């Protein structure tokens, strides 16, 4: 699992790749929470995530809630097939703000 963080205007784009599971999700959580501290909004790029479990989903939920309480934007983008299936199982596809593409998310949230 790898995390790449890039600045796009006032937004941070967090690109996650590989498997997000019990052993790697703490890193995802840490990265997301620290991004929220120093940004106006966060876009999470899930295009290269091959697997995500409940602990990974929980990290996303926690970051989403933290951003919300701070009045910051938080969106998911380019959610690949596997994580989308998991989000749907959790009925979270209706909770998260999800954009088909990263640039769309950045444009919408700017």
């Amino acid at each position, binding site marked *: 699992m790898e995390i790449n963080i890039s600045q796009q205007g006032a937004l941070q784009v967090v690109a996650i790749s590989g498997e997000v599971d*019990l052993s790697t999700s703490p890193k995802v*959580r840490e990265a997301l929470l620290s991004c929220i501290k120093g940004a106006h909004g966060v876009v999470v790029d899930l295009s290269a995530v091959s697997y995500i479990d409940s602990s990974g989903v*929980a990290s996303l*939920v*926690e970051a989403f809630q933290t951003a919300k309480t701070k009045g910051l934007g938080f969106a998911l983008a380019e959610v690949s097939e596997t994580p989308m299936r998991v989000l749907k199982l959790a009925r979270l596809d209706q909770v998260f703000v999800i954009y088909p593409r990263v640039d769309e998310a950045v444009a919408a949230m700017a």
Partner: protein
Amino acid sequence: MNEPLELLVEIGRHFAATLDIEATMSLALKRIAHLMAAEGGALFLLEGDLDGGQLVCRASHGPVDVRGLSIPAGTGIVGRSVANNAPEMVWDVQNDPHFNKSLDKQFDFTTRSILCVPLSVKDEILGALEMVNKSGGDALFTQEDLTLLEALAGSAALAISNARMAGELAEKEVMRRELALAAEIQRGLLPAPAGEDFPVCGVNRPARVVSGDFFDYFTLYDGRIAFTLADVSGKGMNAALLMAKTASLFRCLGKEDLRPGRLLQRINAEVCETSLRGMFVTMVAGIYDPTTGRLVLANAGHEPPLLHSTDDQFQALEATAPPVGIPPELTGGGPVPEEVIYLEGGSLYIFTDGATEGYVEPGVELGADGFKAMVQSGVAAGQSAQTRIDAIADCLTKDGVVLRDDITVLVIDDAKPLQERLKRGDNTALKVVKRDQAMGENGEDSVFEGSLCALTVPARAESLKLVRRAVSETSTACGFSHEQCQDLVLAVDEACQNVVRHAYGGGDRGGQGNQSQGDIAVDLRREKGSFVILIRDYAPAVDVKKIKPRDLDDVRPGGLGVHFIREVMDTVEHLPPPDGQGNLLRLIKAI
């Protein structure tokens, strides 16, 4: 040539041509009786000692066949001759105090005179030649008769002695050949080397032709490897025979009983059913999983195996039960306690005391420290496990140093550390074994019977990748769609996570579970058109009532796992574990 000399030459020729003493002596007695006009003659051979032994008639000539007649050594005139190693010439037998009259009565015969000479070679008394009742003339044996009989006795004694030595030699040769055959059969009981990549190998050097030590290993249906090493007390043929029995029991029972502790218990019960005459077997049995590096070990009274870790530390694993051969009534008869070890790239050395107590040079033992040093230098030199243990055996079997005991070493070499295995991810060589659905339902280990794939991993976050890989491959093999496979992987992952996080209580959000906290056993089965997943842990029982899926309207982190499992699977059941310990979860999905 005069007649007596001619006779001696002829009989001498007979003796030289045959080892059949009795036939030659019968002929000789006939000829010599004729020559000295005696009524009869007999050959007596001493069986046993002069004191308490018997003089047995082995050849006779005359009106009465007395072959087989046995008299106590030291009795009668023949007995006196043998006891004194001196000839007897008795002209008036009936008045001799040593004469045994009952024999005459028994054979309806009247003995009048006796000429008797002892048979001896050097100081060894073999028996005597006796002639009775000279006829004609004054009917008295003469000095000439005595000389002739002594000459015959001399060559007869030599012939008898030669024949006996030849017999002993032949017997020894038969024994030697039989022993060589036994050794060959015994070597056949040891497993053939399985090749460079195989993680288990051994070496055995018998101190004598046959050995009381043995080792064995074989691959189980699920890719795990069962192994054993044992040392039978003693070194001779009796030890070798008990070794063969124990080795066969291991081969036979080891394929059906996958718990090494219980296997040793069963082998002990079988071995104790036969009379052991005080012999016993110290024995280590175990099962090693090359996929995870997990090793389960049971030790019945054997020398502590040495665990050599990748950071060059040694750990001795002490025996936890008495040796095999101690009747279960004396020990309580339970299974031998098991120890679970993760080799994590290290090696486990199991050896007999012949290896540590063997001489490197006369009078100097290799010792435990010497053994460790050889292991270390072998590892440092990058030698294969087989080369390392061969080197140890070689240094103890140098020319000129007498082997005092059999030398046997077995090594389980976990070449790939666990973390490396897990990192390999998709390349992990998991064996998905397809088996017939109908497997026997007997045995408590039914958790692993009829399974497509079974694996036991440490309950850590890092192990989950391996579990996912196993589920992915197995469910694909069952014919599930790509999406269904993904769902099944998620469900099993979540169930295992719950074991790591809740049952064993490792890490509040996971990921911190780096310290091993027990095992998770996952068994993937195909049963009656369904994919069945059994997940077993050995943690304290979890209160099932407290497990509930989260309310999905309540958006907060965590609590999703159980929901995922119930969403994906058709049936989720908490079952009582087979032996009342830990937790057992059964997940079912129709194929």
